[in-house]
């Protein structure tokens, strides 16, 4: 009975518009308008910033010329790059560890399945949002001015940056747990820590490990960029060599880096697949 009723109704709509279309007319119109607006913003920005794509193509040979100066890579320089690479990985490891530890209480306090007090919950949500609005490179620049050049500002900047990200991901996972499993632990007379440990942790642990590894990958790449503002690691030597226009050395470092990043991400991906 019901399907037939519905069919009749659709029939009516179709005959009224006298066209057979997958989307209603109104939606089509809206999408067209949105596309038009986006395109006009593109062209306006290109004009205002005087970016010229034709120039890019006409000077393609210049770009190739510069690229060619990077070859052959100066392999002997890899020797000198190993230590800074290790330093980069160390920065990422330490920063990830700190942020993983700090994010646990943070994310519990900003999950509405755990914290029932609206004001407390909102306060921690806001702190987390503020953390995430600060770009890592800005944090690094500020910390370099406080602590001087070295790995400490790198570690601090990445800790804060990945804390915002991790706490956000974890708190949202905690908000999607099955509250009934938690309720059962509560009904046995367990206190809040026992309820979290027995009722929440088993539900979020695989995701938590996965996020930790993902943030570690991000931190390896980010610590590289931070080297450019003096926060230690392999980024610092790339910056130096670029300034001296030692492109062959830069290329050697880049290849070393590529290999390192691929190795780290392969291991981390394999681990992540195993836990989820």
């Amino acid at each position, binding site marked *: 009975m019901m399907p037939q009723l519905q069919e009749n109704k659709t029939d009516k709509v179709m005959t009224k518009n006298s066209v057979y279309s997958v989307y209603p007319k109104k939606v089509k119109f809206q999408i067209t308008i949105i596309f038009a607006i986006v395109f006009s913003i593109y062209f306006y920005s290109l004009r205002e910033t005087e970016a010229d794509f034709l120039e890019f193509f006409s000077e393609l040979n210049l770009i190739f010329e510069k690229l060619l100066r990077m070859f052959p890579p100066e392999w002997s320089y890899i020797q000198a790059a190993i230590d800074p690479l290790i330093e980069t990985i160390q920065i990422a490891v330490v920063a990830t560890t700190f942020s993983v530890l700090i994010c646990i209480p943070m994310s519990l306090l900003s999950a509405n399945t755990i914290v029932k007090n609206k004001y407390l919950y909102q306060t921690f949500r806001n702190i987390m949002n503020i953390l995430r609005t600060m770009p890592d490179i800005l944090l690094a620049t500020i910390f370099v001015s406080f602590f001087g050049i070295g790995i400490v500002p790198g570690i601090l900047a990445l800790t804060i940056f990945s804390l915002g990200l991790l706490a956000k991901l974890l708190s949202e996972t905690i908000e999607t747990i*099955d509250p*009934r*499993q938690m*309720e*059962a*632990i*509560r*009904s*046995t*007379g*367990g*206190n809040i*820590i*026992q309820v979290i*440990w*027995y*009722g929440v942790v*088993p*539900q979020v*642990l*695989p995701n938590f490990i996965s996020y930790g590894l993902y943030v570690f990958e991000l931190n390896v790449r980010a610590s590289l960029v931070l080297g450019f503002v003096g926060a230690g690691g392999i980024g610092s030597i790339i910056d130096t060599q670029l300034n001296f226009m030692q492109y062959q050395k830069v290329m050697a470092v880049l290849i070393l880096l590529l290999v390192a990043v691929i190795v780290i991400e392969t291991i981390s991906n394999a681990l992540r697949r195993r836990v989820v």
Partner: protein
Amino acid sequence: MITFNDVSLVYPNGTQGLKNINVEINEGEFVVIVGLSGAGKSTFIRSVNRMVTPTDGELLVNGENIIPKKGKELRKLRTSVGMIFQNYNLVNRSSVIKNTISGRLGHTGTIRSVFNLYPKADKKLAFENLKRVHMEEKIYNRADELSGGQQQRVSIARVLTQEPSIILADEPVASLDPPTSHQVMTYLRRVNKEDNITTIVNLHFIDMAMEYADRIIGMRDGEIVFDGLVNEVEEKTFEQIYNRPIREEDLRGSENDASASGE
């Protein structure tokens, strides 16, 4: 002993869960609460271990008014009142034994429980209780690998491990098929008789209520509309409680009668 003195409960959204409930449940009784969904059965049961808080009246459990309890006092109450849920509410990713031993949480220090440092006697108790519900061969299986009936049996073991004086069961068989429902009710009944644990069960299946209860309490719109021993109950009583003729969906069917399943 559980005594409700003029207990009412209004939820924050204005729904009246309980209206002036006055009832006394004696030690060792097996009470089944019947009523349609929304009649206040769950609210009634959940008031006893304070998963919900009555807004008015006095609710005595073992001689103490439990309504003002909070914090440590409340957790102590909950250790002595075990609860079984419609959806079993086992922690899916944890093992059967871990779920069972979590019944000891209220008796165990935080640090000890976090590092699984339970006294030997507690571990033995958990294992013995799994044996009672015939789940001893699955102790290291993850809870979500079990069937519904098996999960409900583990949740009975969890409750027994609490060593409670009262067991509350909120629609324990609503998600199960008829044979498994009878099995679970039989375990609850046996525990009630052997350990003399006061048991309150919410059911909406009339035939099951008649088969297992000592006493039946009927609820409608947050009020008790019937209270009597099982031999005082007849079909007309249920029609009064439900305020409509009895239908086939109100029956679970017998142990061997899979076709009469209400699902």
